[in-house]
């Protein structure tokens, strides 16, 4: 199963993840 998130955000939005990284519920994905 997969979850796709699509969202609008200011251009300075920064992801704090890398491809292949294991994440858990509630872990930061990004911030403005």
């Amino acid at each position: 199963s997969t979850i796709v998130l699509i969202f609008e955000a200011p251009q300075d939005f920064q992801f704090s993840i890398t491809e292949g990284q294991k994440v858990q519920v509630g872990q930061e994905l990004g911030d403005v």
Partner: protein
Amino acid sequence: LARAWAETPTKWYPLPIAVGALLLMFMQYRKRLPPREVHVDEEGREVVRLKGPWQVHVLGALPLRNLSRVWGYLNSVELPVWFRPTGLRVYSWIFGCNLDEIEHDLKSYKSLGDFFYRRLKAGARPPADSVLVSPADGTILHFGTIKNRRVEQVKGSTYSLDALLGVETSSSPPSTPVHFPERDMAELNDRHFADINGIEYSVQELLGASTPSSNGSATPARDAPAGIPLKENAVDSPKKHGELVDASVSDEQSTTAEVAARHASVAAEMGVRASAKRRGSGTEVKPGNELFFTVIYLAPGDYHRFHSPTAWVVEKRRHFVGDLFSVSPWMARRLENLFVLNERVALLGRWKYGFFSMVPVGATNVGSIRINFDQDLRTNVGSRRNHPTGTYTEAVYSAASPILDGQPLTKAQEMGGFCLG
């Protein structure tokens, strides 16, 4: 072997000129091919087709939806109590489940499907202090910005944003409203007013007036008119209705005060003045903004409930009936349009920066998607033939909160999950 490797002389032969010329012609031909072949219908919308190497065509010929249902049935078979600890420990060892964080004793899980949809102990996943958090346990497959309304599946392979989320058409029938359970407003008195950004709202304003339907069923919709290519307006079978209510986290089980507080919290987070009465989950971005995406893959051993990734309001859901291919990274690299072909539930709404959507995509082993606040949603039922790729059923959640015009969700609030089969 060592001697042969070291001592065998290398002899070079000139390739025939014709072979070299053919190779050059082939390379030139490949270069001149358009970067991506797109088939469109008479209205200019992309028609999604199965594309990929022979392996995906072989998989496409299999009855994946039927296999998924058989898999679900097998995993719902009740296990003898004496076998559960051993059997579930073996399963956990194979798929890497962390048994230290599960909520209940292993003996309490009646079947493998029950264990698969397990809960975690309270506080096992504290949410981070950032605007966007992970909705699930899993692996980041890909992330980035969306250019020209195309989402990158893997490097060099994209799919259409409109095909993933669906588009409004002028000929579309109205959406089906989802009714929410009647609440006892007498539970609250005049003190229960929410002060949101300097404006006071009563609980009734936040939660809406009681609806005549208290069982949570959607209003039966009329048949979709002929000739609508992208949207249906049918309601799924109401059978197994009660099974889809999530016992401890759904709004139906919370007290009115708790729900009102949650709604007020989301309203305050989003700035209700700006968002109130602003309908429409369009993907057009405001100046200074961009569209971003991220894809999270849940492996079979992962915790399979999903939570709200931010404080947002879900205005509508679109249920796309589709195939149930595996969504493993191996498949994502080979099958183009994988996420557009598979069955999925697109939840569309808005957060404080504008448009927001979350799309749980099913797979062969997990064809069933549950949304806690949507008791009418039925996935992995019916025939795939009756639902051409791109068609969907739509429901709106405006009855959940008239002020917010949708279902408010706080950050990290549990909102549903994937079930086996």
